[in-house]
């Protein structure tokens, strides 16, 4: 029971309380870059969840079996292994499920350079998560990223048809929206304080 509770806490913490985008500022490039439309934001989020899960597994394998004696190679091996794994998975999906490949589209390769992915691997290492905890952490982080992307896209679509002052139209406005969203997500911190 306590194990399960621990997992629920990891999930909730990664998805809403310490949301990767809004609290840790990870993955900001897609957050400001592709949130112009709702459906692309959702697809990017799903592709992110997928890659995060793979990354978490790859990082666990590296940490447990390979990097035990050479921790100073951690960063270099992480980035090389993650980039090539994602590339490999991309090829596999293209072969096995063209429909899924089309749905994810250009976003799959782009995600490789997303700092949220490397961030996940590093946080997982520094917190000493095992395999199951790591996967739950990855799922939570992915859900959190998707949530932030979709909400952001929804609000930005609205601001396009409304009278935003010319001076802050575009990037500056996106930062203000992100600030308010981040403020709102801070409220989730109260979720577990009584426990």
């Amino acid at each position, binding site marked *: 029971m306590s194990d399960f509770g621990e997992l629920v806490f990891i999930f909730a913490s990664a998805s809403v309380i310490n949301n990767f985008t809004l609290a840790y*500022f990870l993955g*900001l490039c897609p957050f400001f870059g592709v949130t112009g439309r709702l459906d692309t934001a959702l697809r990017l989020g799903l592709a992110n969840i997928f890659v995060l899960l793979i990354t978490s597994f790859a990082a666990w394998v590296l940490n447990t079996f390979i990097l035990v004696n050479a921790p100073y190679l951690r*960063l270099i091996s992480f980035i*090389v292994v993650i980039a090539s794994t994602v590339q490999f998975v991309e090829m596999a999906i293209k072969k096995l499920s063209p429909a899924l490949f089309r749905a994810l589209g250009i976003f799959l390769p782009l995600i490789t350079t997303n700092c949220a992915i*490397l961030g996940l691997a590093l946080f997982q290492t520094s917190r000493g998560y095992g395999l199951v905890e790591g996967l739950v952490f990855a799922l939570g982080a992915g859900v959190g990223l998707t949530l932030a992307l979709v909400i952001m896209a929804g609000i930005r679509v609205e601001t396009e048809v409304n009278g935003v002052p010319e*001076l802050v139209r575009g990037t*500056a406005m996106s930062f203000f929206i992100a600030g308010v969203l*981040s*403020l709102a997500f801070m409220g989730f911190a109260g979720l577990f304080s009584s426990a």
Partner: protein
Amino acid sequence: MSPRQPERHFGPELLKGLWRENPVFIAVLGLCPALAVTNSLLNGLVMGAATAFVLIGAATIVSLLRRLIPSQVRISTYIIIIATFVTVVDFLLAALMPEAHKQLGAFIALIVANCVILGRIEAFASKNPVGVSVADAVGMAGGFTLALSMIGAIRELLGSGSLLGFDVMGPRFEPWAIMILPPGGFLSMGVILAVFAYLEKRKARASEAASHPRDGEAAR
């Protein structure tokens, strides 16, 4: 083989990164470190210095090796070179400034994923000789550090009422706690970008008025 590059000079390459092509405020790159660690001026400076070390080192190496790196695998080569320098700076900070290293945490390692570095290396250092590449890297790193210090100073001043840990706002000042929390990062960046947009617009209007004094009035 490669098309002839236009003549490059040290001065302009060095200076452009500081303001006119500032990586954070103009190109809006490298946001992750620019917002995540800038809740105080000191953190901004340390992060800027660490990034500068990586950028200058990687740009030098890549520029020296630019004829040896096959173009098919160039991005992965750059990433490995960058990751090596980041590992070095990570251990350096852990040894020299353990307190700051603990505060910055995983964000030092995340310098690898900073798009300012890969962007400058791909766009500049891989195509230009060592001298100007280093000048470009120094300028961009300076601009990046400047931007981080600016955001860090604003957030520390309003959020803690101090600068570099010294109390400057006096005892009557009520700190805006929000500024050192994540939302403060987004909000200060938004305000800075709006100020830049305003300056840009005013400059455009001034130069327009100077070149066509009568057209400008007729249009209104």
